């Protein structure tokens, strides 16, 4: 997908319930690692199958990337809550930073299945990291819009994707809801931008996980009602619930 990220498709068999947008699976990537690794379900190419879109970050993601095609992989899930799908019309704004596109891809597909209008903003440090091609292709009729931003200006808007988002939200006919996934600083900025404009916003958060089911309290984030676990209370949170300073600090 990019020089450092891979798309995997898994046959899950009939036992796995169909994952919903926002949900993740917890994957046993290597015998010598203590913990599984969580990845958002990034697509459902056919019933009984699902995609993961994985960026190589450390030992676990490298081990996953090195597995031969056809390997059996032990997967727990789908886990976690899901994005709230719009019940009315209007445009949904999707803001993805870096590998954050993985967390929004199934959502984008699902929104399109329901004929919702979407506007995707995809950011990265530079053009190689851009994951715009994992989103539905823009249509001429404005039903699907897609813009990209790079920090170094190598492709698209030169600057942060958050600046793009701010612009879009200030246009007439602005999106009526926002979904975002990416680095904490980006999420905090989007939370701030949407709060100021009173636009509902949901973010998919990432945290180190152990149990993945709410038992160990290892994956918490600070919310206005105390620490919540990303695995079982999340990974999708209403951004108005998050304590943004703590999100960025942690």
């Amino acid at each position, binding site marked *: 997908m990019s020089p450092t990220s891979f798309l995997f498709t898994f046959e899950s068999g009939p036992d796995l319930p169909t994952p919903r947008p926002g949900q993740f699976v917890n994957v*046993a990537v290597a015998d010598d690692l*203590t913990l599984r690794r969580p990845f958002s379900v990034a697509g459902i190419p056919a019933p009984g199958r699902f995609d993961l879109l994985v960026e190589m970050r450390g030992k676990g993601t490298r081990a996953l990337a090195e597995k031969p095609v056809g390997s059996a992989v032990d997967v727990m899930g789908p886990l976690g809550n899901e994005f709230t799908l719009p019940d009315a019309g209007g445009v949904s704004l999707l803001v993805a930073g870096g590998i954050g596109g993985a967390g929004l891809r199934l959502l984008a597909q699902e929104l399109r299945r329901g004929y919702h209008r979407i506007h995707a903003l995809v950011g990265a440090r530079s053009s190689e990291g851009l994951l715009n091609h994992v989103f539905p292709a823009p249509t001429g009729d404005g039903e699907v819009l897609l813009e990209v931003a790079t920090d170094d200006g190598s492709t698209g808007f030169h600057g942060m994707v958050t600046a793009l988002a701010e612009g879009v939200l200030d246009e007439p006919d602005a999106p009526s809801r926002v979904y975002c996934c990416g680095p904490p600083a980006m999420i905090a900025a989007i939370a701030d931008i949407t709060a100021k404009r009173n636009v509902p916003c949901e973010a998919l958060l990432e945290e180190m996980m*152990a*149990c993945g*089911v709410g038992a160990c309290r*290892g*994956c918490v984030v*600070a919310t206005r009602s105390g620490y919540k676990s990303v695995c079982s209370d999340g990974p999708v949170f209403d951004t108005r619930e998050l304590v943004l300073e703590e999100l960025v600090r942690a």
Partner: protein
Amino acid sequence: MPDITTRIGDLTMRSPVMLASGTVGYGPEYEGIIDFAVAGAIVTKTITVEPRVGNAPPRLVETPGGLLNAIGLENVGLTAFLAEKLPEAARLPVPVVASVAGTEPAQFEQLAAAVGERDEVAAIELNISCPNVERPRNPVWSDAVAVAEIVSVARAATGKTLLLKLSPNTSDILSVAEAAERAGADALTVANTLPGMRIDVERRRPALGNTTGGLSGRALMPVNLALVWKVAGHVSIPVVGSGGIGDTGDALEFLAAGATAVQVGTALFAEPAVPSQIAEGLRNYMGKNDVASMDELVGMAREEKRVCAETA
């Protein structure tokens, strides 16, 4: 089929494989994932008198062969535990051991009395060895007198079977173990996590919000096994092994060293079927090696036992 029923005081367990405190929450979180019916007991998350919010994240970081956690005893507190969590846990097909921690002896007394009163509680584990909270922490966990006081007051407060969970972070575990036995502990869980840390070099700060955490997982296994060997040779109450147990081989090592039962914690995260695999594995081992009973298995690597077996 070999019988692996295991008894510790009044706690009777289908298998010697217990689920370690803090790694399975209050139980229901893992319903449908862990097969509770094969486990000996579930030890619920340590509760305190008041609810605790726990430490600032990040709370987890992996280490080679292990895991550091700094949860900081986040828990619902005694009242909610008794009202909500305990009845839920009791629905599971497994005995419940309630883990409790106080900041001082009087709180241990209060907690032991309150949970000890409840029929759903099969036994109580006193946790004096969490490295992620201010109290009780070192020097308490390495102070035989302080530990004896905690055990005594809890002992006086309840007739339920009492386990005391020791810390591996002490230079003299035997005097603590001995003091606990004398003060009335029915069994000793050996042991909790070892203080450790990692640094996030990129961000130039400790990887955990709490700076340090407790090391668990396979990396810890040889350290806690050595402590079980030492303690089991020194006290006459049962010892429960904890620390990095991930498969039948590990469990056999702890049992052979003299542990009456084992607790599985961190290994559950990667493989929730570990308790079933171990229970099954122990039966297979006993069948294949003509080990007739758990009595014969427990301590089988100890000189005393080997001499007995050879002269029998």
